[in-house]
Every structure is written in C-alpha cells, then in structure tokens.
C-alpha cells in the first residue's frame, strides 16, 4: 500500500509514493537524499533526528512521512543561505560545540527553535531547552556557549 505525498523540504518540493509506515527521518534520508538528519535511537529520546516541521522542532523518527504531506520541513541542510552559514551553525563552529558531530544537526535545529522562542536565554534556560537532545561527547558546556553566542549574533542582526 502506497500513498503519494508532496512535501516541501528546505524550500523544494519532494514528491514520492511512500508506505504509510515510512518514518519522516527515512523519507528525508533516503527519498529526499538528505542524510544530515540522523537516527540515534528508536524511542524518541535522543533528538538526533530533530527537524523543523512548519517551524516547530519535531523528532522525525516519531512522525510518519505521510503526516507531512502538503507541509514544510526544514533540515540542517537548509540552514545556510547562499553559502553563508546560519548564525547558529557558525556559533557551534566557533565555540567547539561539537566533537563527533552525530548529535549536531538535531542539536542545531532545536537551538534554532529555542532561540526563536527565547531570543535571550540564560544558560539554565538553554540547558532545559535542550533536554530533548542528548550529546555524549561535549559535556554540553561548549554547546551552551554556542547557543549564547548565537543569541547575541541574532539579536545584533534584529
């Protein structure tokens, strides 16, 4: 059984026949060919699969592709514009907010959401805002530094 869906991914339309049980994360990685979004668990805990659905951070391992028919999805690949990194990406780079990089796309997407809801978060607010994203490498210090640095950059722009 297949359903035809049309999803806008990073501004482009992706149209395909998919099984209803196909997870959004697999749709993105294998049908749309965007492997930046990662799978880290099966129980919706780790956050490596985080993308933005209509601007809200969601765990793409717990959403079916068919649920995104006619809707907009943004992944880490869509953040940079015209070859310029998004301030959150640049901040993660400057602050060494990543080591192995596996949690990073999800961490960046959640950070984008966090900052759009809370443009000037405290370190405590950042830590709680990132509860849905695990990192095993960094111990989080540099990630918090990165989100704070990005917050500054984004509010300077605004």
């Amino acid at each position, binding site marked *: 059984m297949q359903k035809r869906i049309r999803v806008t991914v990073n501004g482009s339309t992706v149209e395909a026949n998919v*099984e209803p*049980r*196909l997870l959004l994360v*697999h749709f993105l*990685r294998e049908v749309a060919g*965007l*492997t*930046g*979004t*990662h*799978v*880290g*668990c*099966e*129980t919706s*805990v*780790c956050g*490596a699969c985080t993308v933005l659905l209509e601007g809200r951070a969601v765990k793409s391992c717990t959403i079916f592709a068919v649920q995104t028919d006619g809707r907009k999805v943004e*992944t*880490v*690949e869509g*953040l*940079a514009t015209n070859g310029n*990194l998004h301030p959150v*990406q640049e901040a*993660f*780079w*400057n602050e*060494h907010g*990543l*080591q*192995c*990089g*596996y*949690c*990073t*796309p999800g961490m*960046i997407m959640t950070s984008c959401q966090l900052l759009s809801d809370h443009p000037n978060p405290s*370190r*405590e607010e*950042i*830590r*709680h805002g*990132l*509860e849905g*994203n*695990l*990192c*095993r*490498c*960094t*111990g*989080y*210090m*540099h*990630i*918090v530094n990165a989100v704070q640095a990005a917050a500054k950059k984004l509010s300077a722009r605004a």
Partner: protein
Amino acid sequence: MATTTPTRTETYVGRRLRRREDPRLITGTATYVDDVKMPGMLYAAIVRSPHAAARIKTVRTEAAAKAPGVHAVFTGADVEGVGPVPCAAALPGLRVPKHTILATNRVYYVGHPVAVVVASDRYLAADAADLIEVDYDPLPAVADPEKALEPGAPPVHPEWPDNIAFTQHTEGGDCKKAFAEAEKSGVIVKQRIVSQRLVPMAMETRGVVAEWRLGDKHLTIYSSTQIPHLMRTQVALMLGIPENHLRVIAPEVGGGFGSKLNVYAEEALMGFIAMRVNKPIKWIESRRENFQTTIHGRGHVDYAELAATKDGRITGMKLKLIQDLGAYHQLLGPLIPTLSVLMMPGLYNFHNIEADVIGVFTNAAPTDAYRGAGRPEATHVIERMVDILAATLKMDPAEIRLKNFPPKDAFPFATATGLQYDSGDYAAPLNRALEILDYSKTREEQRAARRQGRYYGIGISTYGEICAFGPSPATPAGGWESATVKIEPTAKVTIMTGASPHGQGQETSFAQLAADKLGVTPDDVVVIHGDTSVVQYGIGTFGSRATAVGGAAVYQALEDLRAKCIRFAAPLLGVQPEDVRFEGGVFSSPKSSKTVTIGEVALEAHILRHPQPGLEPGLVATRFFEPSNFAFPFGAHIAVVEIDKETGEIQILRYIAVDDCGNVINPLLVDGQVHGGVAQGLGQALLEEAIYDENGQLITGELMNYAIPKAHHVPEIESDRTVTPSPVNPMGVKGVGEAGTIGCSPALVNAVVDALSPLGVLHVDMPMTPQRIWRLISERSQA
C-alpha cells in the same frame, strides 16, 4: 615560478583554533556509515536471542526466505567456516570460549545473534526477520558476577562450571608486613566498592557496509570503528581472504569511547554476506541492539583494604577485584581489570600492594574498554579509600592527600605495580583547585549549612592515569603509531595518520603542528585517516593516544621533512645545508643575501633543477613512533553538593577541574575532552547503570530506562590546567581523552558521603540516584 602557498610567521600550536572538521558536520554533509549508498544495496536484519541462556533446538527460515524483497537468510550452520570473534588478551590461563559470529546450538546472552535476513530495504528486512522461528529450550542463567561464583550457580559455559575465566595475583613490596604493623599500631580501613556496568552509548550506533568485487576478489568494509587497520587484519583472517584484498574504511564515526575499539561479529558477517550474494550489504545497529550487544563498560566489585599509620601515612593496599566479563570475550575485555591493578596505588607514595583479580563469566553482554577502561574503577577505589581513611582519622581530605603525594623531584616515579610515572607535580592541581574553590570559605559555608541541618558536602578527587598506549611489548597488538607526511609541489601538505579520530579533532591539531614546523597555514594542511588503502598501517584511536603517540609520529615525520627541505634549499641559497636557517616558512642563511620560501623549495624538490648526490627527489616522510613509556596525566577535581532531604536529589553547586595533560596543542579541544569526560563520570556517579535481572534479561534495554546525562544534569564546569610536560614524546603531551571521566566519579561520591557524614555514612555506591540517597537518609535518620 610564483609560489602558491603564502608563508607565515605566526605560530599555531597552543592556539584555540576552531576545527577543520566542523564545516561538514554543522552542514549535515559528512558521511557516516548509514550515509553510504551503493547501487543495488541490500539490507541486513539480525535475529537475536530473547533468552540469556538457552539451547537452540531448531531455526526455521522458510517463511522468511519467501517474504517480499528477501534475497537470502543465513544461520549459524551457514557461517561455520568463518573464524571466531578474536580476543587479543593473552593472559596466562585465560579460558576463551569459542565465539562464533552466529550462535549454533546455544545462546549465552540476551541479544546473541542467531540468524540474519538480507532484503532489498530495511523495512522488508525487519518484516522478514519477524518470520524467522527459533525454537529455544531456556536454561538457567546468571547475570550477577558474585552470584556466578557461588557454588551451584548455573554454568555460563558448560566446560567451566565455576564460571571463572581467569585469575591474576599481583604483589609488590611487602603487604603482609605493612598490614601486620598497621594492625598493631596503625589503622586499617576496608570497603566494598562497586563500579557498576555501564552502556557506552555513543550517539551513533554501530554499522557496517560491505561490498565484494568478484572480478578482483576484493572486499571493502565500511565500519563505524576506532581501529580500521587492526580490524582489517582480524576480519581478513576470519573470512580467509588475503589481508591486502580487504579495504576497511572508517567513515565519519559518531563517537566510540572504547565501544568501537573492537572487532565485532557483524563486521565479518557482512563481509561473508557480501561475498555470497554479490551485492553491497548494509547493517545498521538499532539502539536496542546497541544496548544488548555492543560492549559494556566497568562491571567491578572491589574489596579494598588500606593500611596506614595513625598520622595518615598510607603504607599498604590490598584489593580483591571481581570483574564481570559477560558471556564472551571481545577484543580486550579480560585485560581491562589488569589495568585497574596497575593503577591501584593512584598518586600515593606507598609501595606495598597485593591484588587478586577474578574474571567471571556471566550471561550478559561482554564488558570491554569504555572511557578510562579500568582506570576510573581504580581511581574510584583509591580515592574512596583515602577519604574513608581521612574520615576514620578525622583528617582533612586535602591534607591527607598532600601528605601522601611523592615529592616533585621523585620522577620518573616507580610504583609498586611496576610502572614508571613519567612526570608529575600532584600538589599543584590540588592547590589550584582548592584556591579556585576558596576551600576554607566553603568549609565555613558547610559548617553554617550543617547548623541548619542541611546536607552540604565537599568532595575531592586527585587522580592519576595511565594512557598514551604504549610500549609495544606491554600491548597485545603493538602500541606505536604511524604517520606519513607529504609536501606537494605547490607546498600543500597531506598527513596520513594511523590514528582514527572520531571527534577528537586531530584534523585540526595535526594541521597546527605541521603549520608551525613547515611555515604554512593550517588551511594548507589536509589530514587523512581511517582508510586502510590510503593510510599506512596504524593502530587506531583509544586510550588517549592519538596526540601523544599519533602526534609524535607526525612530529617526527615533520622534522624529517624540515631536514630534507633544508638540503633542497641549500643550493638555492648558494650555501651548505648546515648554514641554512628555516623559520616561518622562509629559508635564509647568514652566509647569503638570498631567501627562498617553502613554496620554492617544494617545487625544487619535484622539478629538481639542482640534483644532489645522495638526495632523492620528493618530500614524503613516514615514521612509526614507538613510545618508551605510557604517559601519566593527573589532576584534581572538586565537587560541592547539597542534598535535598525530601527527594534525595543531589544538586551540584560547584564543579572544579584542574587537569595536567602536559603541553597543549589546542586548548579548545582539551577543554572539550575534559567536559565530555566529566559528563560521562557524572553519568556513572549519578544516573547510569546497565541492569540485568535474575533471569539475565536486560532491564535497561533502551534510552527510556537508561539515563544518559542531559544538558541540565551537567553543572557549569570551572576548569583550569597545570602543565607538566611529559618526557615520553617530543611534544611533551600526555593525553587527556579519558582523564575527565577518571577524575569525576570519586569527586562526586566523596562529596555526597561528606554531605551525609553527619548521619554516620562512610560510603555510597553508584549510581547515586535520588531513590538510593533518599532511602539511605531515611534508614540513617531512623537509626
């Protein structure tokens, strides 16, 4: 001809440079193993035992074989020709169960692989795997190592009913005398201390892609591994193919922490399948499989005794170490507790030790190296014992440590366990940490809190650790590391390192080394690793060795190239090589008014306008660095905690880490390693435990019931450094990847015990969950 590489006079070593690795990682364009795609690729799904111990009566595969999209099904009988999973631990008398890549007539732990289905997509493979019918005859199982040692315990392996894999007895000095004296006129403290089983939980699970080219009988294996070359040698042997017909590629690897320092059944199994079905095959481990079958860490029950004089001078230590090994040995499992014995005296100046290790089989996942690999356990034990001794003698825990450190001029320091600590100044980080804390003020705050009936504690941990593995005779497969450095005609530099980084940043730190040595910029340097067809044989990344050993090889190759460049420069300047100076990418001489750049010399080395007898063209240097010793980083961590009486929750008020890893190439990277290490130590101390029930069922089988530290669990880490260079390598670096983990858990436990000492608490085991602490407070308050 114009030079194409600008020269620089600034230096890069020591600078907080952002990483070369990051652009691909922050844009989601890196290639991890699940990102590898090949035309016609098939997917494997593995069927695993739900029982901890059982006989396999039958395996029925017909329904699965006929399912949609299925190309093949394999069971234990099909792979009997593949060699067993290797164990490199050559301990005298070690009992090694034959570890086939798929179970044949018995299963020994939950997750033990029994069959594999190959299908055209991963969903169909999972569907078909559900159709495999295995008829099991369950047997009694035992997952607790102390229970496994009791008479009458179910035998994990029928041929060894006592469940003992090995024993090891170590003695140094004269423990009997030390303890007899302490019995008479000193003090002896004893404690049972558990370092619980942990799941390493790298964010990326394991995964393998295998591709067989029938025409030239060549196999390529992509694997999320820390040891591409070592794994290649072993898997070639397992599959019976020539080593030079196997290419192993470690693509981007999403964390390892020791759990990918191994050779796993699935690596050979996917190779076998690729050779049979003649199509590329991919297997990606689910998180549940990762919890069940990727190696676990720790798993110690330690019975420790410390002998001392009444004024707090430690004189001797006895240790009985029960190591939970699991059902099989993976690559290094049995060696891990022997590393604990090596480090049992910690940083303290006493020379009488006695240790007995018992390696025990259990119906559980194999234990093996996990961040620290035996040293967190050892440090946890000695640091707890020192605190127990201090509490017993009513001595200050900082004072008792300072009293027992060897003096600064005692290095290299020979330990009772046969090691030579390379260099050290143990008082320095402790004093610095106490200064950052404002120790006397914090003790005052503690007194005030106690007057209010609050549980407020300060915990100190002074750790030392053995890393930068290491002198080859002391390692199973060689402890050297290799580097090839090439300078191209356009003066661009390529470094091929046998190290295999997976987040540690050597693409950046090695570029910093090269930039300084050759007068180029880090942007002119590319570091390649992880591909056995490109990189000369290497050992890999684990044991905090990539910079201390891998970097040393790079350094030596760079020095060789400097010397060769000088010889090419000499005729260009019209002088002899001994009169050439090379600084900041420019060659000059007091005997010449000319200068030439590294760009001009690189070109000359290839177009050779001035051939010289005995000087070959080209600029390639290969070095294999064999370290003369391990390196021994050290430091002091201090935690300040307050415990909520109502809930048992531990609030970390301050966390201070002062670490000494010798000279530092990139402080940003070192900070990151310390933070990440502390977070894993904290995970062990407060949150994590891999729990098997009495039937060997893995209760903590998913992230839903295994608590990995989240961002709000880890405190703000105040970190600083002291610098005591190591004499072991030319850069004076020591390694730091595991140090944070080693220093952390004793600091946290010592702080909690200190907080609860008004209740008479002398020890608490990890993880110090709110439930455990609350229960302890309840019991003690009633007493």
